[in-house]
């Protein structure tokens, strides 16, 4: 059943301070809405439980990309299009730009935001494995002040996060230390545009002389939360990549993921694809190329 707009409040304070003050005045009562690519879908389906919404769309404080010497801070209100079009960000964090390119279509990329993707907390979100693999950090803001925390661990369970009811994500911080890495991102789905992934991967690493110096592997749609394959990484670090190691990495990856059967795919297929993606990444690593 479609929702009736008369049942919903929507306010637009127009600046970050106003939004934060409103959230602080009655924590948990107001749902922030940015470009609406998730919230309005729930609304259209009559499944939006919040009745009071506060617009954070296009707030200038949340929609900037700051390039600092040590890190790039992407405002949580930046759209996928903003990310795609940013030259330095796309060059240094190609897996994020890649995920932005295959999220929705152009119209949704113009409205969907990085912060929205994080708080919506879908395990299938395309941009989140990239944030995990890049060791992103989040700056959260509220009337109580700011806090900075690691993105890893932000999702505590299916659709559950560490954000407090009076907080907003202000920015996503990406440390600029992966320029020497090989980046690999791939989405496996019915199609790139407008289709939710069956499995998606973001992985990066270095393997001079075929010996793994450092790898980071993150997957979407294989667990209740975006998943970092820490066991597989531990297996690989310091080792020479050869066929037996790739075989072991595939086995470890399959054991590590926790996929389910749903309308898009099956647990068995997802596990097999996850293993194959890890193998493809390792082959790329020894070939020394970049895919993304």
């Amino acid at each position: 059943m479609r929702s009736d707009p008369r049942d919903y409040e929507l306010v637009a304070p127009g600046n970050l301070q106003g939004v934060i003050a409103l959230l602080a005045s009655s924590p948990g009562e107001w749902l922030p809405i940015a470009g609406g690519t998730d919230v309005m879908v729930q609304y259209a389906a009559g499944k939006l439980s919040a009745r009071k919404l506060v617009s954070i769309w296009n707030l200038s404080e949340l929609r900037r990309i700051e390039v600092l010497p040590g890190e790039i801070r992407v405002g949580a209100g930046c759209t996928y299009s903003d990310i795609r079009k940013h030259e330095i960000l796309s060059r240094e964090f190609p897996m994020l730009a890649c995920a932005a390119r295959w999220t929705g279509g152009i119209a949704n990329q113009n409205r969907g935001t990085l912060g929205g993707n994080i708080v919506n907390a879908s395990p299938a979100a395309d941009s989140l494995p990239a944030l995990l693999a890049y060791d992103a950090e989040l700056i959260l803001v509220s009337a109580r002040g700011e806090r900075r925390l690691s993105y890893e661990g932000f999702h505590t369970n299916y659709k559950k996060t560490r954000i407090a009811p009076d907080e907003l994500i202000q920015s996503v911080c990406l440390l600029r230390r992966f320029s020497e890495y090989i980046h690999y991102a791939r989405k496996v789905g019915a199609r790139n545009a407008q289709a939710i992934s069956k499995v998606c991967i973001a992985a990066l690493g270095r393997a001079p002389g075929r010996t793994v110096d450092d790898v980071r592997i993150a997957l979407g749609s294989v667990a209740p939360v975006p998943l970092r394959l820490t066991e597989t990484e531990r297996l690989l670090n310091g080792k020479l990549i050869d066929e037996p190691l790739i075989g072991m990495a595939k086995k470890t990856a399959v054991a590590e993921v926790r996929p389910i059967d749903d309308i898009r795919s099956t647990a068995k297929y997802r596990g097999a694809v996850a293993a194959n993606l890890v193998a493809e990444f390792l082959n790329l690593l020894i070939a020394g190329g970049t895919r993304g």
Partner: protein
Amino acid sequence: MISPTHSSCQSEISFRVNGEQRTVLAFPMERLLDVLRHQLGLTGAKEGCGEGECGSCVVSMNGALANSCLIPVLQAQGATILTIEGISVNKQWNALQQAFLECNGAQCGICTPGMILAASHLLREKPNPTLAEIQEGLSGNLCRCTGYLQIVEAVAKAGAQGETKSS
């Protein structure tokens, strides 16, 4: 200071549509799509899926393509909006529309306004797009009739003709 500008009461919301300043009385969570169609009589934008998947409700808002079924009308306050009705020049089809006609790029017509707006944006950014660029530029617009080939052909034709100023 908190100064919520709207609540669940109807309020006046103003924006420019197709070059004209318009003011509507609407609930802030009404969808821009419904306001355009029901209050302003601009029925070119269609409701296909109602969840941002099909692109038949696409409009241009502040120069960016957006699905109007996902925009609460309050967020259009002060915006500049272009719909399919505003894309023709002096009530004459522009070259892109003409190319759709010539290539049989429209059958039932539901997806056509969105296709043309998306194609128009694409040609503005990439005046002579490759096949892959056309496919990506239109990837958010679904067509259940044509099989896409005629649409892609129409966009390529308009591009080859140098049709970049389509609005």
